[in-house]
């Protein structure tokens, strides 16, 4: 029956064919990321509205350290590259490559978090808190800490997630056909990188 239908209508895909043929988990991750993107979108839109309606908004370029955050951006881009290389290792059954590059990705995320902790400490010592700062509108500090903090939580979650993938994959369980577990973790990690690109532009550079 199915076969005749396929012959009569070769352009119709079978009903069981999902959007992501590799696994349902991948579709689930995409839907989660779409929702998460709206959280970040809401935060950034709110940031824009508050900034546009505050007459005494400080110039972020003068107040926040651009060199350090530019390096943090570079670090996250590098960790995205190590992530795809780790996935490539898993796909091709290369356990050593998988371990090396996923470990480097985790390391990149951890250094990012340490640098963010250093940056936050530095800024709070200068008098910037979530409720006020010496340079202008108190909402500058509020939005800065909420947005970078929300993103930092995502990086922390990603470091934990990738650590779990690395530890449970040490024995080679995610190689070859089973690499989609690594791919799904990678989707999350690249999303965190993508969001940082936007946060870096809107909160630090604009």
């Amino acid at each position: 029956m199915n076969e005749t239908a396929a012959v009569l209508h070769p352009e119709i895909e079978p009903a069981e064919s999902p959007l992501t043929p590799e696994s349902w988990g991948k579709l689930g991750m995409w839907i989660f990321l779409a929702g998460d993107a709206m959280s970040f979108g809401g935060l950034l839109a709110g940031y824009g509205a508050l900034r546009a309606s505050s007459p005494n908004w400080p110039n972020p370029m003068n107040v926040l350290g651009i060199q350090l955050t530019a390096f943090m951006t570079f670090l996250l881009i590098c960790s995205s590259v190590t992530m795809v290389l780790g996935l490539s290792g898993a796909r091709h059954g290369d356990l050593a490559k998988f371990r090396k590059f996923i470990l480097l990705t985790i390391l990149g995320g951890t250094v990012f978090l340490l640098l963010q902790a250093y940056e936050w400490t530095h800024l709070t010592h200068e008098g910037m808190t979530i409720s006020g700062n010496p340079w202008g509108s108190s909402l500058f500090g509020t939005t800065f800490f909420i947005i970078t903090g929300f993103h930092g939580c995502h990086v922390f979650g990603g470091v934990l997630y990738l650590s779990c993938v690395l530890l449970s994959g040490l024995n080679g369980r995610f190689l070859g056909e089973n690499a989609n577990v690594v791919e799904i973790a990678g989707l999350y990690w690249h999303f965190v990188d993508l969001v940082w690109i936007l946060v870096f532009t809107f909160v630090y550079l604009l």
Partner: protein
Amino acid sequence: MAQARTQHVEPNYMNIFWALAVLTVIEIAVTYIPAHKLAIGTMLVILAASKAALVALYFMHLKFERPTLGIIALTPIILCVFLILMLLPDLTAKDRLNAAPPSPPAEVTTPAH
């Protein structure tokens, strides 16, 4: 069918990496250009959007997925555009309210009785 879609040629990730690194350097350089704030802002938004697109299309493999998955990925962008459009009248209303206060108190000083 599924095999054909998953077994695509892996893009050269190092090229994407260099593109992202160069775009980041350009972004920082743009902030030092002595141009109008709006012009710099527009350039920064375009640069950030192209970086985000590179990450989504190549690192997240969106370019090699089914188009319907791309629609799922696009929904937050569409909704955010609506959100910004809905916020715009509020911002202009605030300007009107800020400009308004001087006149009303004068009318209140004449009580009815």
